[in-house]
């Protein structure tokens, strides 16, 4: 079992080791798992501060991911609260409508969205990406279960005290569902950070590139410098690993709860 785990990780170990070596040693056989000559600082320095502009891509990714996650958590948790705790005409029909759109694959709307974005000026902006990721239906489903499980008494007693829905949502229920919100936020963060398809279609300017596009462009341009490509790959993976290790429990819970992905 342990052996199988190591085999499973070998590509990552190889990547890390290659990123620390001089180019000439990358393809030496047998593989030097522990580099004999270190050139780590040169490799990473040229990726981060050379022509590749990784710092800019990083900043773009951080900005898009953080704002998308915030928007998505806000919109989804509000909708989840509205669909479970407020009675209003057409509530069930509207919820079924939202449920039905979940069956439409995101890939099926790429072409018309591209045209809509071009004619509204959202094309080639970070705002466009943030809006697209922020209004995903999945969060509403995940969070709805949690809001539904909260007892009505919380709301009733707060209403007797004279609190309105906005107050109840912000100060009473939101803190109660914090674990669920954290789960969704971490998943949304990872998906947005990793998303390659949406930025590829909706971005054009190199200065707006997210890390995934930047990484791809970097690999295309530096086709022959494998040690640099590996240093770039390590750089692209590290933030995700940190988020994952910190939020491991939440990620695993979220995945096994809804069996979700994407």
């Amino acid at each position: 079992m342990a052996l199988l785990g190591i085999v499973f990780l070998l590509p990552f170990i190889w990547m890390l080791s290659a990123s620390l070596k001089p180019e000439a040693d990358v393809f030496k056989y047998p593989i030097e798992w522990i580099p004999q000559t270190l050139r780590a600082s040169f490799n990473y320095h040229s990726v981060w501060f050379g022509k590749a502009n990784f710092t800019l891509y990083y900043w773009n990714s951080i900005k898009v991911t953080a704002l998308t996650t915030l928007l998505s958590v806000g919109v989804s948790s509000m909708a989840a609260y509205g669909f479970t705790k407020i009675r209003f005409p057409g509530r069930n029909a509207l919820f079924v409508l939202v449920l039905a759109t979940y069956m439409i694959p995101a890939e099926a709307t790429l072409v018309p969205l591209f045209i809509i974005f071009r004619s509204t000026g959202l094309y080639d902006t970070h705002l466009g990406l943030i809006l697209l990721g922020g209004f995903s239906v999945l969060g509403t489903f995940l969070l709805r279960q949690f809001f539904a499980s909260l007892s009505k008494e919380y709301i009733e007693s707060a209403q007797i005290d004279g609190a309105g829905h906005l107050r109840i949502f912000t100060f009473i229920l939101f803190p109660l569902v914090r674990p669920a919100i954290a789960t969704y936020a971490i998943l949304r963060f990872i998906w947005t950070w990793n998303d390659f398809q949406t930025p590829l279609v909706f971005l054009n300017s190199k200065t707006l590139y997210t890390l995934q596009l930047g990484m791809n462009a970097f690999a295309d341009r530096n086709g022959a410098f494998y040690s640099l490509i590996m240093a770039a790959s390590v750089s692209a993976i590290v933030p995700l690993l940190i988020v994952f290790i910190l939020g491991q429990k939440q990620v695993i819970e979220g995945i096994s709860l809804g069996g979700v992905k994407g």
Partner: protein
Amino acid sequence: MKTSVTLPQSREKPTAGSRKRKRLEAGMGYLFTGPMLLGVLVFTLIPMIFSFVLSFTKWSFVTGFDKIRFNGFDNFRQLMQDEVFLKSLGNNFIMLLAVPAGMGIALILAVIITSHVYAPGAFKVIYFMPQISSVVAVAVVWQVLFHPSYGPVNGFLSALGVDHPPKWLADPTYALPSVMLLMIWIDLGVSLIIYIAGIKNIPADLYEAATIDGASKLAQFRSITFPLLTPTTFFLLVTGIIGNFKSFALVKVLTDGGPAHSTSVVVYDMYQTAFVDLQTGYASSMVMILFVIVLAITGLQWLGQRYWVNY
């Protein structure tokens, strides 16, 4: 009037105050769900209708809206003779084999991890690594590992004495299986975690009773674990198939559909047609076919529930 005692307040004759409260309540309902509804409308429903309309046109968005020309089912007829599209669709179906293969491995690992292993947390992280890493980085690493002449994979094979190791991603015969191998490697973590969750839900006394009756581990797996995991299995199968039909990033970065379209898939072909060849109408027809396939798989899951849920 005995009912007036048990009915909640709201059913009483509406007074001015209660009507106002009701209106306010409804207003709050729309306020809370409004943003999501608007998002669904603008980013999903309207584009979907738009896409449906476009699928019956011959149009390139660069020519402007006044050049849209409706051509009925011509696009769909053309798709049925489009070799690249048919090849892509066929590849999607071949790639489905990766789903049960990956699930089988995940199930075996899940059983081992839940019953024998000392650090289940660590193993979950290890098997989750490829899923959590960026697809682009992972694809780039494998491009290098699979390099035909000096990649470590072939270095290892020739050290074992294999004279003509496959060219992997550069060889039309081996490219698709190589992509499928990577898909299994990437998605294993998700199936594994869902299987582990499923196994933990099986009551322990079933195994105790089976052990008392002298059932072997294998017999226990066959008659307890596997049957009780059928809902999980069916769920993973259906979501896996949908995921497979939507695969794009891996193919785009790893092979660009090549060599000779051997790894092209429907979404990749759609992307090329729409954003590289700029055939907006034709690409929309491909989208409709993708949508119908996903809808059919989802419908299957809906109908199937009755037969596989054995709680």
